[in-house]
């Protein structure tokens, strides 16, 4: 499975963007069986662009579910370019670009 999936569908002037990211989203507050804290590993920032213009910017914490899912609505029409990027606290980035259907 790909690390990140994006679907963009336009309907009456709005593009509905659905994003699914494969990520453990470890908050850093959880303990393993021997009582040690599991190190944090979660997405901290994400951004959504439409035709290279920033539409949504977000800071998120470790309390978003594992394999996070987001749905956004952006004004636009079929053929617009939607790109999404996320950065986690270890500095790893995930990026995807798609043309809206």
């Amino acid at each position, binding site marked *: 499975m790909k690390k990140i999936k994006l679907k963009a569908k336009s309907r009456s002037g709005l593009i509905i963007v659905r994003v699914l990211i494969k990520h453990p989203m470890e908050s850093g507050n959880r303990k393993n069986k021997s009582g040690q804290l599991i190190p944090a590993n979660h997405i901290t920032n994400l951004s959504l662009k439409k035709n290279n213009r920033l539409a949504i910017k977000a800071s*998120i914490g470790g*309390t978003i579910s*594992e394999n996070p899912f*987001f749905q956004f609505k*952006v004004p636009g029409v079929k053929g617009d370019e939607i790109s999404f990027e996320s950065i986690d606290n270890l500095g790893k980035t995930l990026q995807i670009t798609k043309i809206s259907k």
Partner: protein
Amino acid sequence: MNRRLFLQKSIAITSIATAVGAGLLMPIKAFANTSEFKKISDKTKERISNAKEGDFTFKTPTIAENGAMVPITIDASNIPAVKSIAIYVRNNKTPLSAHFEILEASASITSRIKMAETSIITAVVGTESGDFIQNKKIIVTIGGCGG
């Protein structure tokens, strides 16, 4: 030194070493949130205390069977000039779940969050003319991930 004494001592030393390793090194690695995120969280808490009750769509389940995956929908597209949307879970260790800045998009967000226990969750919608909130109580039967 006989064999028994040697074994006892070596076990003692190893356990101290593990204790030091667990106690001193782990907190640095397990740093839960960035200081930047903490600042946004504190600011959101302050904003909630000054905000008015608002009229927008805030969809949540009333009972969450699994606290690790609670679906949340906030749709404030009926309010003009929305600048930000935040989700704040009062009883979580990290209370702020997410803070979205709406730049050129409709004020509608759907996501899934984790909840450690039953809590009141607050949706904060920020506009130029002030903040609007809505509170909802979600009962969690199985907690998820220590929040």
